[in-house]
């Protein structure tokens, strides 16, 4: 899938994406066995003030994508096979370590799933926030402390001056996640990668943290990539949803459209297993029941003609004939701002789609 073909289209967009992942493929060495392909052909983009939710089950490649954009994938065993991640006109995958250090924490910040263990237990909270500030801003330690205090106040920590000298173990999980956010935002990054920031927290704290993130995003105008497997979180917070499975994007759409009318059988399956409060069901439907039903794959059309959604476990007999068996997958824009991962038939290969880009309205 050629990114070059689409340059003309992107140029016509009014706003440039903050970061765009294009055709990313990452694999890992597996000792004696064959390499493990963590992600392949993944594309997505984030605009300023936009929240891109990346959803999918564990191990589908959500975190690998985010970690790749920070070059935090350990190499070896990891390897970038192809693709690029463009940020401020530069390919993050090829940035030398020295340049990357300025990006990490400075321009792109990241918060993680485990607030309990993500802070270094032997340093004070203040030290850890100030470390980030001192690394990225040419300020004196006193000035850094002031910035750190303000960052802590911004995320709603009471008595920030006093709490600066506290150690992580003296904080609760929700407070630690606030500290993580304060640390991430202290340097005013333009993009925040939030890797399941609320999974380890209980529901009321989850809500607080997400509201906090949303508020901060409004005030600073940063873009956010929110990695989660919680569809409720997606519905309330995301602007655009990127649904992944087995290292591929299976569906990419604005949040309302996706929730109204999911196109890929896997996405449909995901939504169907959510039990509604008003529904009365004998049993819950599993994703498998939906994705193994051949009828689900019929009737999807695009500019290139009929397309068949991509699914790794589809029977050989039901798969369409491919253009190139070594590249079975393509992300096809089936209707404006609706992308679905499809089998790469010769028609699809002839009509390449533009990469997934949904600018904020």
């Amino acid at each position: 899938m050629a990114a070059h073909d689409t340059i003309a289209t992107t140029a016509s967009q009014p706003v440039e994406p903050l970061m765009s992942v294009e055709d990313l493929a990452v694999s890992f060495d597996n000792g004696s066995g064959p390499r493990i392909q963590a992600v392949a052909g993944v594309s997505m983009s984030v605009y300023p003030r936009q929240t891109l939710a990346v959803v999918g089950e564990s191990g589908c490649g959500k975190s690998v994508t985010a970690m790749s954009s920070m070059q935090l994938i350990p190499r070896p065993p990891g390897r970038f096979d192809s693709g690029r991640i463009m940020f401020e006109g530069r390919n993050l995958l090829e940035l030398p370590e020295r340049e990357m250090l300025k990006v990490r924490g400075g321009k792109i910040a990241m918060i993680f799933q485990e607030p309990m263990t993500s802070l270094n237990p032997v340093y004070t909270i203040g030290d850890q926030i100030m470390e980030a500030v001192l690394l990225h801003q040419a300020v004196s330690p006193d000035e850094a402390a002031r910035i750190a205090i303000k960052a802590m106040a911004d995320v709603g920590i009471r008595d920030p001056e006093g709490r600066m000298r506290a150690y992580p173990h003296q904080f609760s999980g929700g407070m630690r996640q606030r500290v993580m956010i304060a640390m991430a935002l202290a340097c005013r990054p333009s993009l925040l990668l939030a890797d399941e920031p609320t999974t380890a927290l209980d529901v009321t704290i989850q809500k607080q943290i997400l509201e906090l993130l949303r508020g901060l995003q409004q005030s600073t105008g940063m873009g956010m990539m929110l990695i989660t497997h919680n569809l409720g979180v997606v519905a309330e917070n995301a602007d655009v949803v990127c649904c992944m499975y087995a290292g591929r994007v299976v569906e990419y759409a604005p949040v309302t459209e996706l929730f109204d009318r999911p196109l890929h059988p896997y996405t449909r399956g995901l939504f169907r297993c959510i039990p509604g409060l008003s529904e009365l069901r004998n049993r819950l439907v599993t994703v498998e029941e939906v994705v193994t039903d051949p009828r689900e794959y019929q009737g999807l059309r695009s500019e290139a003609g009929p397309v068949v959604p991509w699914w790794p476990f589809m029977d050989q007999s039901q798969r369409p004939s491919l253009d190139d068996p070594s590249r079975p997958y393509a992300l096809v824009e089936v209707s404006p701002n609706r992308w679905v991962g499809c089998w790469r038939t010769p028609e699809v290969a002839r009509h390449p789609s533009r990469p997934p880009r949904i600018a904020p309205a």
Partner: protein
Amino acid sequence: MATYLLRRLLLMIPTVLGITLMVFLLVALAPGGIGAGLAVQGGQMSDTSKVAQMQAYLEDRYGLNDNVFVQYARWLGRVSPLKFGTTPLVAPTGDLVREPRDLPEPVMTWAFPAPAAFVVQYTVPSGDALIEDFKRLQREAEGTRRTYVGSVRGMKDALADHVRALGAPWTARLEPKGGADPERFRDLSLDGDAPTLVKLRSAAAAMHASWTEAEASRQRATIAFLARPYPAAGFEIIPNAFSLGAPDFGVAFSRNRPVWDLIATALPVTILINFIAFPIIYLVAVPTGVLASVRRGGAFDVISGLMFLLLYSVPVVLTGVFAIGFLANNQYLGWFPVSGLHDSAAATMTFMPYTDVAGTWHRGWLLDMVWHLALPVLCLVYAGFAVLSKQTRAAMLENFSSDYVRTARAKGVPSRDVIISHVLRNSLLPLITMFVGIFPAMLGGSVVVERIFTIPGMGSLVIEAINLRDRELILANTFMISSVSLLALLLADILYALCDPRVAYD
């Protein structure tokens, strides 16, 4: 923190008690007991009666006939700061003095009537002369008492000889070890002039003579002692029951010197060697472990791991013998001194090296000691490398994959800083814990090293004590080594508390 320290210090007491009791039981219950060492010495002593005399004196002095736990309690009463038993008194000279003990009764008084009791008149000098006089009289009383106790023992031996000469059925009444309890032979007729009987009679005469002399000395010493009441050493809580005072480790009979003097010269040497060795171990092992973990699976990791495993498998005695043989012995390289802590001329050396007017270089006291300590320290350190670097590596690897390291990287911290200020800083904690494992082993190892290189430390002292079965010295050695070890572990605990903010000691 203070309460924690106090609790730890209090918990050390049962530990020290446990270990000293264990060693006490070992020494007391071992075949031969204290006397076994004397028998060794006796090989060189021409006069066997002197051995018996010494042995009898020791049995009397240490109360070896008592229950072993009573003996231990007595030892403990002297060593512990909270003393039980009679309060010792202190002379103006600072010596601990006690009232001369009563003499044991003569034996076999039914056959050989004891000499009549008598009262000695003695006028003590006044002033400072009194102290000198008392010390002289006390020495005399000790000496005559010892002779008397020995003669009682000689009497028993003579009786046993006589019984053996008589044969069955009398021999059945002998004790298993061959000694004779006079009380069991009251019905034994002592008439006749068998050679053993003649010896028995002369033994009795000797006993009576030495009793008279010892009793007279004792009375004189008692008069001198009572002439001026000496103040009690330490603080009396309940007079003659409980008091507080400095530990009294007793006198090492093998050298006839206070045990504390011997330890005071030996302990600093052992501590010095260990305190040189420890920084070396950490300075070599920690960077190696860090490098190995950073380049995990690389050549440095594999080679250092293998090399340290090889080193770890070399016993200290082997290195010691090889170092002495090939590096120190003049037959081969002869680069290092074979033994000791200093050159014989060390006392006259200047502290620092210098070159005199003639252009001759003098190494000075400090370099001399470094030169002497090089091989012993070498023997002591290398085994620790493997243990510590392996632990460092494992701790580093564990921390490398931790979440907060990922956070630090995501903040944009350069990888060198990540390794040093995040990974290594957290890996220090298990390294401090490792100290707890290494230090006791090192102290034990230094015993061997000191023995090999004849360094006058605790190791040499304890082996000598063992060979002579000098109980006081063995016990005091064990006590001190255990205490040093425990204090070092406490130090490690405090260090841990300072390094890990999560630890709250309340």
